[in-house]
């Protein structure tokens, strides 16, 4: 394996994204976001949900691969919709 692409950031750099100004992913009000990320959302293929140094949840929606894993993992805690039409990830291979 070539060692060029190892980090998630580098891998996502391979994909074509067109970010919309507004997020399509939200952790619902009143949900313990820290616990949710640690308990469930860590499985996200793009690591969209991460905790910062202060332990707060960061949602990097612009990296979303639009699979729906977070939605199925936490249907009651997440508001999920498709990004605006024509935006988000565009697969060139698929």
């Amino acid at each position, binding site marked *: 394996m070539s060692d060029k692409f190892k980090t998630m950031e580098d891998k996502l750099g391979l994909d074509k994204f067109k970010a919309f100004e507004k997020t399509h992913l939200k952790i619902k009000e009143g949900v313990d976001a820290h616990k949710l990320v640690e308990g*469930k959302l860590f499985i996200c293929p793009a690591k969209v949900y991460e905790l910062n140094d202060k332990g707060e949840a960061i949602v990097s929606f612009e990296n979303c691969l639009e699979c729906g894993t977070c939605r199925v993992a936490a249907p009651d805690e997440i508001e999920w919709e498709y990004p605006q*039409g024509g935006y988000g990830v*565009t697969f060139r291979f698929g």
Partner: protein
Amino acid sequence: MGAEEKFDLIIVGGGPAGLTAAHVAAKAGLQVILLERGEFCGSKNVFGGIFFTNVMREIMPDFEKDAPLERVVTRRRWSLMTPDGEMAGEFRFNKFAEAPHNNSYTVLRAKFDKWFADKAEEAGAMIITGAVVDDFITENGAIKGVKARMDDGDIYGDMIILADGVNSLLAKKIGLHRELPAVSTIVGVKEVIALPEEKILDRFGVEGSHGAAYEYFGYAARGAIGSGFIYTNRDTLSVGVGGTIASLIEHKLNSNDLLEDFKKHPVIAPLIKGGEQKEYSAHLIPDMGYNGLSKLYADNVMVAGDAAGFVNASLYHEGTNLAMETGKIAGEAAVMAKEKNDFSSASTSQYEKRLKETFALKDMKKFRNLPKTLEHSPQLFEKYPKIMEEFVRDMFTVDGEPKGKKQARLIKRLLKQESMFGFIKTALDVRRVIL
């Protein structure tokens, strides 16, 4: 769209189910509009790697002339992965390279679905891209169309086929299916890795335009309920792994980390060595089986493909052909409904009725117990692969110990870890659901 404009059929989603429905219905003369949320049809679509073309051949017998096909699959290999190695079985039939090519081609969906969309347009369907549909237009409780999130996005039509993929928020909205269960929804992650053609031929033991499909079971997802794959394209490999969402959470596994580990496994690493990553993608697979299919129709509405849950997750791993078959039958049902000018469930129910006579619903039914069996047999993914590895490796270890003695010793040790009854029951359960 102006309110005065009304289509016979609105299709949501430009994957194999939606495009087939569009092709069939437009060709029969219906006014068809297909709404795709991506920049182009295929731009959001991901699968493992084999497009099964039996239905494609029915609706477009000459598709091989210009379809962007990668390789014809002549070799399929199944491996029971263990932490340190593998045990495998395979078939290879060069006859499959002859027409009709066993209807098994590796493809890359961004190219293939885009090509298919052009064909659907040629057949007369109107395709609007960049159009994400959030809701239905209803009048007095009756569905009259859909709302796309765009200017003039209210689109009216007599019938709607939901082919909006595994997440199908629309089918959920009108109660045709429940939320996808985490125990039987698989998240698959995949990389497309470029490798010179001659390396692909050498490493996978194929010639010319022939290709191979390698599938990995057992300890492919580091003990979680899941599997992995490598499919050979012309000059790239599709390499991926997936596991049920519930199982990955339980095992504290991030899906990308899982893929990175899969690529480093001693069995996989030499096959992809020196390759150059081209793309990273992720997608859900509805693995609920027959019992988890959505309701397939309502007044004015039919559901096809992944949106309804049509994936045969047994050893055969078929999906694209089920999507196309359901899309085809739904499209034909729309044509019949138009002839009768009746768009109520009396008409749309014909879709399910006819589908029962096809391989799509019959195969789903045959493998209906697969999701439950896998969910209740976590030993298949960690404990058994480890036991098998130990047993086979030790039996083949050449160290002067007589084989009979070795065997007796190993069986004794094996039965300490699992009862004979447990082994046999699992073996029978699994055979019934995968073959």
